[in-house]
């Protein structure tokens, strides 16, 4: 989906420090850019902050997005920034409602690119059903940033049936992943200088709040935990669950859903998809007796057609995640150490 959002005629073609000065140029950029594209009643007030009417338990989460390149196959940093925070709210069992949006722009950024990112924000907000209600724009000197960084911070009421808590995870719980692993991370990797492929992998960045809502509507407290395995990948989330519950996790390599192209790219670069970053993916830890039913209904949700049960919680090896390899061997899965670097050997 791409909205018709023609760029306004502006006096300037690139972002300069003046656009972050807080004065006239900042106002112009906001007036004809941000406020116009993201228009809503609360944002229109243009105070130092927005006033919201919230009641009851509310989730609150933040993320900064520093992805390079800012445009990648299947999306851009604007969409990503909205989806990332929408999904973190969903992982809290909340219904995402309002976002703040804060840009750090690098001097020299073509205004056209800023515009495209803004449109990405708008499209993602509409798909997720959330509003940007307050924001900020800073400009840093050339070479002191990387085109666009975005922080989004979100709030949303907890789903009334949600009881997401790592302490509710039980032995026997099934671990469901909502789609194919490593797609987003390899989409980004595949356009990095020195590593480029001839074909592109499309990022599967998307909003997961509708799927999570459906799951909570149907299964409520039987959903014990939700996590989105972004940086650090599925392995890191599972090791965190093992650490935080004191229980063990069993993981079945043959159950891991992965796109053949993504698998090929991982083989080539010597990367383990368990550690590759995802966006548009979540892990649900579900009561054993409801797992099959939950999986079936998840597969009918948007972006979740490849959902799969990939493992279960166990008392066997406390605090450890153990993977059963494709040939049936077992090994420990640890947290990612450092950044993942392509291997040759």
């Amino acid at each position: 989906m791409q909205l018709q959002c023609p760029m306004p005629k502006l006096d300037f073609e690139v972002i300069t420090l003046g656009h972050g000065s807080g004065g006239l140029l900042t106002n112009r950029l906001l007036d004809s850019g941000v406020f116009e594209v993201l228009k809503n009643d609360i944002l229109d007030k243009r105070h130092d902050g927005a006033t919201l009417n919230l009641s009851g338990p509310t989730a609150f989460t933040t993320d900064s997005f520093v992805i390079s390149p800012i445009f990648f196959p299947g999306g851009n940093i604007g969409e990503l920034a909205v989806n990332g925070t929408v999904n973190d709210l969903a992982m809290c069992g909340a219904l995402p409602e309002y976002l703040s949006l804060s840009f750090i722009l690098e001097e020299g950024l073509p205004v056209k690119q800023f515009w495209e990112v803004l449109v990405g924000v708008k499209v993602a907000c509409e798909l997720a059903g959330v509003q940007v209600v307050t924001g900020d724009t800073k400009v840093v000197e050339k070479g002191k940033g990387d085109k666009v960084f975005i922080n989004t911070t979100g709030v949303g009421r907890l789903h009334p049936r949600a009881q997401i808590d790592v302490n509710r995870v039980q032995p026997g719980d099934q671990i469901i992943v909502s789609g194919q692993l490593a797609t987003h991370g390899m989409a980004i990797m595949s356009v990095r200088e020195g590593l480029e492929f001839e074909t592109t992998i499309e990022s599967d960045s998307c909003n997961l709040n509708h799927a999570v809502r459906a799951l909570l509507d149907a299964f409520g407290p039987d959903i014990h935990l939700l996590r989105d395995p972004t940086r650090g990948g599925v392995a890191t989330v599972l090791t965190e669950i093992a650490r935080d519950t004191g229980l063990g996790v069993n993981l079945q390599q043959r159950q891991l859903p992965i796109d053949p192209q993504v698998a090929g790219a991982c083989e080539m670069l010597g990367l383990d998809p368990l550690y590759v970053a995802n966006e548009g993916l979540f892990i649900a830890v579900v009561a054993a007796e409801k797992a099959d039913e939950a999986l079936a209904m998840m597969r009918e949700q948007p972006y979740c057609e490849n959902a799969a049960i990939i493992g279960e919680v166990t008392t066997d090896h406390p605090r450890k995640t153990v993977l059963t390899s494709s040939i049936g061997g077992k090994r420990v899965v640890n947290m990612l150490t450092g950044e993942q670097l392509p291997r040759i050997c």
Partner: protein
Amino acid sequence: MCLAIPGKITTIESKYDGLVQVAKVSFGGIIKEASLEMVPHAKVDDYVLVHVGVAISVVDEAEARQTFKYLEQMGEVAEELNIHGFLPDQKEYS
């Protein structure tokens, strides 16, 4: 040692005034360019073993079956195993 994986040549082209033959090689659908300077006889549809951007061997399909025949020869392989086909990619990785 040294990570090398087999992929299928989809096209071959000359580069740098015919000095170098390069192939597009598909690995599960993802395409990467590889130099054919070490395997100049490789043809489209051949599988080549690629290491750091250079194809270093053409897969011998007959020999590839030997690993499974080896057990057969020892009378150990159940006929129904169908090991010559491919397992679905989704299911085999990590």
